[in-house]
């Protein structure tokens, strides 16, 4: 599955470089999150997207700004690819008032409704039926927007996967279900808990198309998503797109990974989505060494300033703990 990245699908050089910049941004963000977590600045359990960046970037590149996504506990990459700002994300991870959720959500609950990011989710498969509901709203409004639901392969073993996709299929809702097959559900290999090799094989059970792509090939993901999204906008109903990838880091920061088969991660590092894409770009002379250095420096500067922003931001005032349970119409009973 590691053939060279394919033709440029009619993308301009600038568009190709934008994908590259996004891949680098997610990687740099995640590396920094890992570091800041070790310092105790990033709070709480945190799941990194390192190695899986091509999926979020490839899929979201095929979206319009007014489309929607639902995300998972491993959601930083989805959020960044959908247009969330690194500074407000970092502030959220630091538990600060200026974060997307005022410091009340944290890593597993980043959301930015103005960017069409309908929320990370701490409940595995939690986002799947929500995406179906967003698709229903779009259908009722007779709009041509679409929804992407990102989830891991392990989520496909939960009931909400079945119920959410079946309903979307029955009502022909404009939802693309994107499975990120990274081989692990926490400390358990996917092969231990599924009898099918591909989650996409399950699409047949709902009467919708299922497709497997190389999730470490950003252009392959982009092409598949673009075609699926065209189907959605034409009213042809949902689809299941499975992207094969590998979770290069632990389940969460701090995971000792001693259950991982030796040598496996090293083999996957050779298929690193960023290295592969930058090699391809250089091959095509879209990316030069000089431009690579400049892009890396720019990305790094953006992440540095995101951290500075987070650090300079205050923690939320304790009163915030009691706010936003209901609308302003109702109060929380305190005694």
């Amino acid at each position, binding site marked *: 599955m590691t053939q060279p990245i394919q033709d440029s699908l009619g993308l301009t050089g600038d568009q190709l470089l934008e994908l590259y910049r996004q891949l680098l941004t997610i990687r740099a963000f995640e590396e920094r999150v890992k570091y800041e977590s070790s310092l105790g600045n990033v709070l709480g*359990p945190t799941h990194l997207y390192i190695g899986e960046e091509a999926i979020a970037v490839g899929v979201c590149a095929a979206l319009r700004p007014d489309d929607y996504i639902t995300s998972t506990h491993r959601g930083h990459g989805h959020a960044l690819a959908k247009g969330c700002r690194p500074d407000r994300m970092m502030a959220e991870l630091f538990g600060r008032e200026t974060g997307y959720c005022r410091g009340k*959500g944290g890593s597993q*609950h980043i959301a930015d409704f103005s960017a069409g990011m309908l929320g990370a989710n*701490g409940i595995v498969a939690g986002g799947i039926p929500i995406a179906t509901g967003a698709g229903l709203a779009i259908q009722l409004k007779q709009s041509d927007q679409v929804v992407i639901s990102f989830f891991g392969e392990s989520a496909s*073993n939960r009931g909400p996967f079945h119920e959410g996709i079946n309903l979307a299929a029955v009502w022909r809702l404009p939802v693309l279900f994107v499975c990120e097959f990274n081989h692990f559900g926490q400390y358990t290999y996917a092969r231990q808990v599924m009898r099918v090799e591909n989650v996409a094989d399950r699409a047949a059970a709902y009467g919708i198309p299922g497709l497997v792509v190389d999730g470490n090939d950003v252009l392959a993901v982009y092409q598949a998503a673009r075609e699926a999204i065209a189907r959605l906008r034409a009213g042809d109903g949902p689809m299941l797109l499975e992207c094969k990838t590998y979770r290069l880091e632990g389940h969460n920061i701090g995971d000792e990974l001693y259950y991982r088969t030796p040598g496996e991660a090293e083999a996957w590092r050779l298929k690193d989505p960023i290295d592969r894409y930058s090699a391809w770009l250089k091959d095509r002379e879209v990316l030069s060494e000089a431009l690579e250095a400049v892009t890396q420096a720019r990305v790094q500067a953006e992440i540095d300033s995101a951290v500075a922003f987070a650090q300079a931001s205050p923690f*939320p005032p304790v009163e915030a703990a*009691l706010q936003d*349970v209901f609308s302003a119409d109702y109060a929380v009973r305190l005694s």
Partner: protein
Amino acid sequence: MMATPMPAGVQMETRRITFRDAVREALQEEMQRDPTIFVIGECVELRSAWRTTRDLSVLFPGRVRDTPISESAIVGAAVGAAMLGMRPVAEIMVGDFVTTCMDELVNQAGKARYMFGGQIDLPLVVRIPTGLAKNAAAQHSQTLESWFMHAPGLLVAAPSTPYDCKGMLKAALRGRDPVLFFEYKMLYALQGDVPADDYTVPLGVADVKRAGRDVTVLCWGSVVHKALAAAVALEADGVSVEVLDLRSLVPLDTPAIQRSVERTHRAVVVEEACRPASAGADIAAWIAEHVFYSLDAPIKRLAAPPVPKPFSTPLEQAVVPQTDDIVRAVRELL
């Protein structure tokens, strides 16, 4: 975290272990004793998310099984296997996820014996790591014991020490009814003494963790340790606090509550969960109904406000009762 002593009066050879090892030892010893016991859950073969099942899959091949992320199937399968005389132990990785298997817990496990006219025993244990963990946020921090007090047919246990945890889990594994066994995540690293020999702690029996004259603080799980710290602080001011660790919420040891409150004449009920319709609300109502004439002051309740648990540290700390809050509440009653 501070260590906990053995209960007074217990004199045996002891060992010092953590709360998480208390869970593992109880499982290991009971699995050794009873071949019908088996463990299912997510990532339990390796060690479980909380390192409570370490080594068990090696010691008991085939009897400790990883499941898919399928909470309905985990609890439903436990119910079905229990119907056939097995003794399943199901682990729900984080307490908040009980929402994803409520039907199996409430409509199936809790009702099977009754609606089938008492034909079967349902000896299953659902282990539920629960409560606040540092910055785990809204979907990984709740403690929902009270929901299951309201649902008939489920025993609800929530120990506070390694001694109680091991003894109660062993008792649960020798019983005939479904037990929801709440393990406070913040207690896993707590050390305490346990007997070297086999022992059990019966479900439904409260324990006076510290005897006192002036006020009874009623609590369970991780709050017990805050109450004990508050009692120490108040002792310096000459206030004598009794800490009554309920240990089980179903059955609730109402005679022990009565005994204690009749002696101290004052009651503070403290819990980490949200205030409305909580376990503490039920306990306070019971005291008001049955021990009212012994009270010298209104019953006090400390609980979280009815808000989801927030992520950021200052907010997270603000929404659950802390030792200082207990000290203040006790003073207000005197």
